[in-house]
């Protein structure tokens, strides 16, 4: 895409008004023609999931397990339709096998959004432990991943990372940190 075109499409996304983190994610998905979004839900992801369901551009639905969602978007990509998977940290922890046996060796641009639990105020010890497995698993497969903490960096990181995943045919994990989303706290 030419720079001028990219600028105008970015402005169009800005024109939609919603500058919340989830509004930016939704517009970035749409701008990159990602229309299939299976998920295993998470409290923090709720506004994004709700707005995806409300937008007829998207086919979005819950799956029973995260690896099932990875299988679905992998099949869809081979069939010519782009997808992304939404999950929580604990869900990512179930994915090592499917990453190593499907997404990476078949060179599938698997786009993952992970709502990060287990840090910055976690109240569940199990969540804090499982969170520590996430980056070592990503690094062990040399997978691209970014932890997004700032609203002003979200669109750049998400948009560029999606384009890189597609053009290099490689998975990417975009980790939505509590500094970006507010996270989940004990009193919620």
């Amino acid at each position: 895409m030419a720079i001028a075109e990219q600028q105008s499409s970015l402005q169009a996304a800005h024109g939609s008004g919603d500058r919340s983190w989830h509004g930016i994610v939704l517009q970035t998905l749409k701008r990159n023609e990602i229309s299939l979004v299976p998920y295993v839900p998470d409290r923090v992801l709720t506004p994004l999931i709700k707005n995806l369901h409300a937008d007829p551009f998207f086919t979005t639905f819950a799956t029973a397990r995260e690896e099932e969602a990875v299988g679905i978007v992998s099949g869809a990509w081979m069939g010519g339709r782009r997808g992304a998977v939404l999950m929580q940290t604990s869900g990512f922890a179930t994915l090592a096998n499917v990453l190593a046996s499907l997404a990476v060796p078949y060179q599938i641009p698997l786009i993952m959004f992970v709502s990060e639990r287990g840090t910055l105020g976690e109240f569940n010890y199990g969540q804090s432990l499982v969170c520590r497995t996430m980056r070592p698993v990503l690094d062990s497969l040399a997978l691209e991943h970014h932890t997004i903490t700032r609203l002003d960096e979200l669109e750049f990181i998400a948009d560029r990372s999606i384009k890189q995943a597609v053009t290099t045919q490689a998975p990417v994990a975009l980790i939505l940190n509590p500094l970006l989303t507010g996270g989940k706290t004990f009193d919620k």
Partner: protein
Amino acid sequence: MNTAINTRNIKVMNRFDVTSRLVAKLENGEAVIGGIGNTNFDLWAAGHRPQNFYMLGSMGLAFPIALGVALAQPDRRVFALEGDGSLLMQLGALSTIASLKPTNLIMVVMDNGIYQITGAQPTPAASVADIVAIAIGSGLSNSAWAADEEDFERLVEAAMSTAEPSLIAVRIDDKPGVGATRRDPVQIRERFMHGLGVREPL
């Protein structure tokens, strides 16, 4: 293979034979996803087609991958071949498919009640569960056991002319797969995409 519930009158068939019968019926570029191990070995042995996808891992994901293909290409029929042991790994996928109601997805379960490839150990479901009952209970009302080879072919034809997802369960013997898929994941994926018309070769 369930012998305790309602499969007593169902013929024990052979995976390669049944797969060959299925492939012989494909005349419209139907996609076929072969699950890990013997299901894709026999799909390979039945004659490579560019619309075939062969899994080399990710046990249990044949139906989810096929669902993704079906959602991407709603005008193309998509078959998935899965073993009973593999399906047990991902039973939730049956409900996902039932809720989405893809009109073009046909699931085939090759049920021998064993993990043939690892040494023929019985699955936990082997003597107690009924795959078709599980599928119906998961919301896939159009699910049936094939009574014999002719019934399997009839069920395939019916599935190809209906507008709801179908599941066909086949009791099979304990024979290993006939062929051995070339384990080249990038080439498998790339040729599959060519076969689906998504890409052109370089």
